[in-house]
């Protein structure tokens, strides 16, 4: 197997493993309240479908299938269907929803956020066939994101100033404000450096 072939296969496997890790991480400890079971089912299904999509992404699709035999047409229809839905988005939403069904555990959620970000970046690498080194210009941004991730987890661990929903909401708004401010400032800094 040449290196050119090995790289997308390796990133595809890595993406699947990260997706599986995210599913396991948000599922434990297993709970049965609300829609937890359904969310877990969606996470697992979307991660598996995403792995299948990455595995068959190299197969070309023919536009003209009218004269092809039935089994080949069915296979091409399957390929077309498996490529169409946004499996990764579904997995991300279901994983976050499943995590939200658990009792508050800020550091656990922060790790899940990091795993999901890594999952999406690896899926992107597997999709595009680009090597991991193409992410090196994004390392400062990802580092800033990790800092904000830790900040969000820390904000989640801070005790509320006063009892009641308003106080908790204030913490959330503060965290979002910090993230948005960073998002607005960062492009200007990176442009100046560039």
């Amino acid at each position, binding site marked *: 197997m040449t290196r050119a072939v090995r790289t997308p296969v390796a990133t595809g496997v890595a993406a699947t493993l990260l997706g599986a890790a995210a599913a396991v991480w948000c599922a434990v400890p297993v709970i049965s309240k609300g829609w937890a079971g359904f969310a877990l089912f969606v996470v697992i299904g979307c991660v598996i479908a995403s792995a299948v999509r990455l595995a068959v992404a190299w197969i070309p699709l023919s536009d003209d299938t009218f004269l092809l035999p039935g089994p080949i047409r069915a296979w091409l229809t399957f390929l077309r269907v498996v490529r169409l839905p946004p499996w990764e988005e579904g997995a991300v939403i279901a994983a976050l929803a499943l995590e939200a069904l658990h009792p508050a555990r800020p550091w656990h959620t922060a790790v899940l956020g990091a795993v999901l970000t890594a999952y999406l970046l690896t899926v992107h690498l597997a*999709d595009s066939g680009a090597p991991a080194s193409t992410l090196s210009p994004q390392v400062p941004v990802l580092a800033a994101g990790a800092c904000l991730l830790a900040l969000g987890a820390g904000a989640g661990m801070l005790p509320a100033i006063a009892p009641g929903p308003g106080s908790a909401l204030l913490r959330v708004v503060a965290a979002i404000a910090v993230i948005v401010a960073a998002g607005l400032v960062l492009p200007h800094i990176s442009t100046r450096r560039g």
Partner: protein
Amino acid sequence: MPGGNTDVAVRWRLSRHARRLLTLALAGIFIATVSRRPEFAGAAAPALLLLAAGRGSRPAEISVAARPSTRRAFEGETVTLTVAAAGAGAAAGVGAEYGVRWTLHPGRGVDPVGSPTADGAATTLAVTPERWGRRELGSLEVVLRDRWRLTEGHAWVNLPRLDCYPRPAQLDTEVVLTRLPNRLGEHAARTWGDGTEFSGVREYVPGDRQRSINWPASTRRGRLQVNMFAAERSQDVVLLADATSDVGEPGSSALDLALRGAAAAARVYLDKRDRVGVITYQWGGAGWLAPGLGKRQLYKIIDTMLASDAGWARGAAFRRLPRAALPPGALVIVFSPLLDQRFVEALRDMRERGFTIFVVDVLTVDPPARPRVVDRLARRVWRMEQQAIRFSLRELGIPLVHWDGVAPLDLPLAPYTRRPLVPAGHRR
């Protein structure tokens, strides 16, 4: 697009990668707000920062050049398409700042050679036309991607048209008339002249050139003998392609064979410095090109065959064709499946007007065999009709050979290329 640079508008949208990151960011912020847990906002932070930092200027327009290696190709010939994207101002970074991916969407009857996609600001793609005709090469999709692949710019470019010529059949020999017009050429005539082909010796008469004396013959006969040479003449050849019936598999149909055979004959006769013209006979009229000489005439002939449906000659018939289209004494080589009775009548008429006609039958298919008695009977009647048509032409003295399109055209023509063809109304 005429093959030069074209400015095309670029439509930008989020890439699939960006949509995934956006989903993570929005879902994290939404859940954080609903559940009042700031750690979810933190989980959305990396994705949000990537989206924010990846913003950049995006050109609204780029300049694309797509040049095919040729505008004229034969069937099955590979045509290379050189494509390049460039820009000014915000688009100056095309290739460096933006990755470029080209996707070829070939037109009808055009196949891509190898992968239809290629990367790079300047690259090459290859296509091959399947069948003769005026073909649209298709369109080219240009996808620009920023360095973080968060946005994609899409642009479409229409490719120029390609004239695909029928692939000439294999033909190296030619049918030559016994009586040739008094015009310099490369065919050895039956009269004496200044050619290079030896035709005999005769007694020396004053005025003969000394260099033409045949000394061995003179020694044997005791008198001076001089060599005689055959005159070299050219002939007028008119190729008649019957486009009234196109039966058979696409790619090897009667019309395909007719055009390939006519193209091969045109090439061979023009190589021999004969004057070659063409008439295409079809429903409602005939298109024609007067006999001419030279390499360009070959392309003119094929162009006439491809564009036989256009021109002022629409509605014309053989009787109304100008004298230049059918010069007297011309050899008329017909490529036809002989399915149209009116065309057969036109051949009879031409024969009665004194033209020397040679027919190449290009019919290679029969009606489908069906088990019903009526169908079998109809098939038999059809075959008998076809035999009758061919018999009647032979009775008129028109040589008729069958060509299947697979074997070289030299094979069916062999009995007539070894000796000259006697013109109509003459006996040896």
